[in-house]
């Protein structure tokens, strides 16, 4: 009985033949809708920061240098290539590429930085309105990420519930 099963097992191995791929000498093409490294297109990006607010790993940072210039930085360190950013982007400025061989000695190689000129519309010109009610990141305060330390930061003291808003401004009524 057991001898028979040993023979069967041998047969399975023999029938299998050689299946090892000749990778990396010969790389198989990744499928068409593969989710590889996201590529950001600065010419299409309007700087709404929808991607930044919907990134589960919080790998996209936004920082406003001044009223007209916004920096959008993709860090790419912990990015899980889930493709949520590409999904929510209203301008289709993000594409999930077919790149996956991304090993590097310098983690900064993975990042992309966009300096965006923000023209002013009648309102503020920088609003992202998600397709669904769930595509919104609701935190207290406003977003002002720490680009130097590559950290996402939400908040401003004046928005804390327990503290009055902008208490450093004294308005003299007379």
């Amino acid at each position, binding site marked *: 009985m057991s001898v028979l*099963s040993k023979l069967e097992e041998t047969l*399975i191995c023999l029938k299998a033949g050689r299946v090892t791929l000749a990778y990396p000498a010969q790389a198989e093409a990744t499928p068409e809708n593969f989710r590889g490294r996201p590529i950001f297109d600065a010419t299409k990006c309007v700087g709404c920061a929808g991607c930044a607010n919907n990134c589960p790993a919080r790998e996209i940072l936004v920082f406003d240098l001044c009223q007209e210039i916004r920096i959008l930085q993709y860090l790419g360190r912990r990015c899980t290539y889930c493709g949520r950013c590409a999904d929510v982007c209203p301008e289709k400025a993000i594409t999930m590429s077919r790149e996956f061989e991304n090993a590097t000695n310098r983690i900064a190689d993975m990042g992309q930085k966009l300096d965006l000129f923000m023209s002013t519309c009648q309102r503020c010109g920088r609003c992202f309105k998600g397709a*669904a*009610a*769930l595509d919104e990141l609701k935190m207290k305060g406003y977003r002002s990420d720490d680009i130097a330390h590559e950290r996402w930061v*939400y908040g401003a003291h004046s928005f804390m519930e327990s503290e009055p808003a902008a208490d450093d401004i004294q308005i003299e009524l007379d």
Partner: protein
Amino acid sequence: MIAREMFEEFKARFGPLIDRADLPNDRRLFVYVDRTVVQYVCQHIFRELDARYVASIGTDDRPFSGKFLVAHNFAFDKDHVLCSVLTQLPEDDLKIDSITRMVPAASWAEREMRDLLGIQPVGHEYLKRLVLPDGWPEGSHPLRKDVPWNEVPADYDENREFEFGATPEGCTVVPFGPFHPTLDEPAHFRLYVEGERVRGCEYRGFMVHRGIEKLAESVMSYNDIPLLAERICGICGCVHSVAYVQAVEEAAALKVPPRAEYIRTIMLELERLHSHLLWVGLACHIVGFDTLFMQSFRIREPIMWIAEKISGNRKTYAICLVGGVRRDITHELKAELRVVLDKLEREWRPVVEAVSGDRNIQKRTCGVGVADKVAVKSSGLVGPVARAAGVEIDCRRDHPYAAYDRVEFDVITAESADVWGRVVVRMKEVFESIRIIRQCLDKMEDGPLGLEIKDELPVGRMGLSSVEAPRGESHHFVITGENNRPRRWRVRAPTYQNLQGVAAMIKDQQIADMTISLGSIDPCFSCTDRMETIDVRSGARKVWSQKELLELTWAKMDRETK
């Protein structure tokens, strides 16, 4: 019996002891009871009504109701009902009677509650740290709402070690883990060994606890979490993601379009296929039979490729969002998937036949790691471990979700209750999964992939979801909340229960069988059992202390970096 009838019975028996009850549908029952009778109610449910223990959840509800909440979840598998027994605790008296005397399976959950929320289970016999690191100060409970998600207490002592209990008389200590070649993740078992026999063990794990639940309820939003949940586990990621979205959908009463349900079912079954093939391979590898390990991995590979084609990645499918799925399965993909399934079935059948008769594998697995029906009931064991003991539970049939109520399949069981039984169950389940996917491909109807959610989700509702992962039931509990994120999200992975049964499985067994016993539950966690060195020539014996070993490691690392 539906939830309403069950509630009528509860009312007849407990009457005024029930404060409140919620019956959102026929298959869910939330009963609020007074804290003094929790033990009594749980005993009745677990022993007399013979329900299966699922999980206990603690939550800080102070910002909303001013109180803490404790929920003990049970499953009535034959009646298809999930029942939650809830209790409110005032802030100034955080004590609750431990239910571990009647329900031993609740042991870890109550220890976790004590670590993370500071809720004291009165009467619990083994109140050691479970989740928090040993140097974490007493009185600091990270899951409380007033603790920020990124807080590390100032007096956190990184170097403090876990204190193990006394070694039983006549026993030698063999450390198993935290890193072991047969395990992929860290967990430490301190085995008490008499000769070659294991007499007992003490466990210390949770070394890679990542605080995902806290992140979810403080800085993430509803649609971020499915993608985070998927990373809880490298094997059954899609299971966690589906379980989470289903819990949210249930809480918010969202009805998912049928096509999305079919796609979820197909992805879950694809995941089961790859996981079962992987596990059978690994189990063979652990007992030293690498031929079959290679063959299972070879047979498994096309599954990974087709998953990549459908979802965009081999393993982390990232296919679920609240209200639906992100990607469609087109006609071309359907045709390709059928071809893959045919090939898999053709190749897997001879493997099952060959292994069924292989006496080498049977000798290593028969009678090893036994967990019988009693152990299954008391430790709350799930999945193939329970089914191998003849306990016929399967969430796909008992608590149907996604499209499982529209497909036919058999629940595979075995009677031997040992590792061999688990091998048989998992090998045969592969065919059931193939059958399920084929039916889904036939029945899948056209339609939208997801719901349009225009409004914010209702606040303060509860949702339960049990999803049958390849290694057992994965249970998620969600309370919806403000600011587009849940108030509380609790994940009970199958290994959480199954690991609690390991101590009983390995007792009085050969130490060499430890690896396969542990491997047989398919634990989601690794070992340097090199604590003692013997100089062969002089026979001199030296026991290295952990400190010495650490210093040795650091010295070596320094040498190599220079």
